[in-house]
């Protein structure tokens, strides 16, 4: 799966799609593929403030547990309830229906974020 170019990526294999002061966050195809069948997703509740680079939740598969790090700073606005009910979406559609949280940005700081091409290079090197 080619990395969608409409969003930015972190070296922790998260993506963030920014639209003004709103952002949507999820994990990449590489992440879901490495984890295997995902069985559990835990994200902070709406209203919680998150800080860039800090662990905010977990995505768990049968064989591994992966911490999710906030790619940007902001406040959680919505958690994807569909994914908490049916984790398979994260595996089958990590860039679409498998989104994890929506948040309101605290700032425009894009430190640590890379574009699709740079992320593609990173994945190739692994």
């Amino acid at each position, binding site marked *: 799966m080619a990395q969608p170019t409409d969003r930015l990526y972190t070296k922790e294999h998260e993506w963030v799609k920014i639209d003004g002061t709103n952002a949507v966050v999820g994990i990449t195809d590489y992440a879901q593929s490495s984890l295997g069948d995902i*069985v*559990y997703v835990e994200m902070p509740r709406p209203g919680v403030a998150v800080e860039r680079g800090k662990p905010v939740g977990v995505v768990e598969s049968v064989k591994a547990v992966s911490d999710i790090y906030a790619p940007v700073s902001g406040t959680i606005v919505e958690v994807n309830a569909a994914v908490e009910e049916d984790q*398979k979406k994260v595996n089958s559609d990590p860039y679409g229906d498998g989104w994890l949280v929506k948040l309101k940005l605290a700032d425009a700081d894009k430190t640590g974020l890379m574009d699709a091409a740079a992320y593609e290079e990173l994945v190739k090197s692994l």
Partner: protein
Amino acid sequence: MPDLAEIEVARHFTELSHRNFSVDTNFYPLGSCTMKYNPKLNEAVAGFPGFTDLHPFAPDSGAQGALHLLYDMERSLSALFGMTEFSLMPAAGAHGEITAMLMAKKYFAQTGQGTRDVCLVPDTAHGTNPASAAMVGYRVVSIPSTSRGRTNVAALKSKLDGSTAVCMMTNPNTLGLFEDDIIDITKAVHAAGGLMYYDGANANAIVGLVRPGDMGFDLLHLNLHKTFSVPHGGGGPGSGPVGANAKLAKYLPKPVVVRNDDGSFALDWERASSIGPVRAFWSHFLAIVRAYAYIIVHGEEGLRRNSQLAVLNANYVRAKIKDVLTVPYEDFCRHEFVCSAETLKKETGVRALDLAKGLLDAGIHAPTMYWPHVVPECLMIEPTETETRETLDNFSATIHALVKQAHDDPASMAELPLHTPVRRVDEAHVGRQANKGIGLRWQPK
């Protein structure tokens, strides 16, 4: 809760037992588990009513046989491992680990060094090591391994400072290699004011040959259900005695077993510096009886010979399969070795997991897999000393056949196993249910 006629119980559990591998029926080349044969003498003596019917609160005068056995056990282990004193209280290896961590913490607190809070753990360590350290609040720092498969001494030394509390290691390590810098390491850790802890899971390579005390270790635990032939029971009970040198013996859990001047034996509760008890009662006594029987029929010579033959068997299997699976380290191994299916995966897409499932079809339990993490597609193989050459040859032949099948028909490997009571199970489904608290018990319809 059901009511059942005894015949229903009989058929049910006998039928269940037929759906299990076991040492008495199958070969288990499981690295770091030491699945050696469990002698039946041990079962018989552990069943004597004089042992099974003895209440832990029976007065010492009425438990002299049990106390004598525990005392002899304690003396034998102290001699074998170069320690001053042992506690036989911990229930399992991980329990022994946390006991030792609590002892280390108390030692540092009492010597005015309570700020030491870092535990150094090689990246090849068993998961219980960092878990035990974290449970007592230690920060875990991972030390990388070298391309020779040993702990990187320079990296370790660079992490030593005033916050170093404990360095946890096993020797031979989980790659099956003797840490030949061990004296250098223990000296450096001691110079920095830290303590050395020996994870005894790999003791089957060293009993009667070398003592952790001589290597510079201050504390250690043993797994009687590995090295000392106590059966695994499908996941316990084990027994994880903790040994300590002269500096740390006073922190051992209480009560300990002592011999009085008049030759009688007793439980000693007067241990002012003890960390306290770690179990409600004194030991996994009936497991220790089994290990004790194992020690007395072997003696020092027999125990040494077992270690030698364990090393022989591991090297033999290594020699026979290194042409089809990559063995990343060129030194002879100790009681276990690792090999990698990474090349096989690149060439055919077939993984270590698929090889393991293929072994099950041949009635051979899979080796330890995917650990240590430093070796990709890792298989850790420990035959133990009780397996025949024939069994080892058969294992090797099966591995060769599976690798051939992987090349000839890679797609077929994902279907394995075919002949076990159940085939590959849907772990994702049960994981999702379990997270909601469903599927973890039988429910009436």
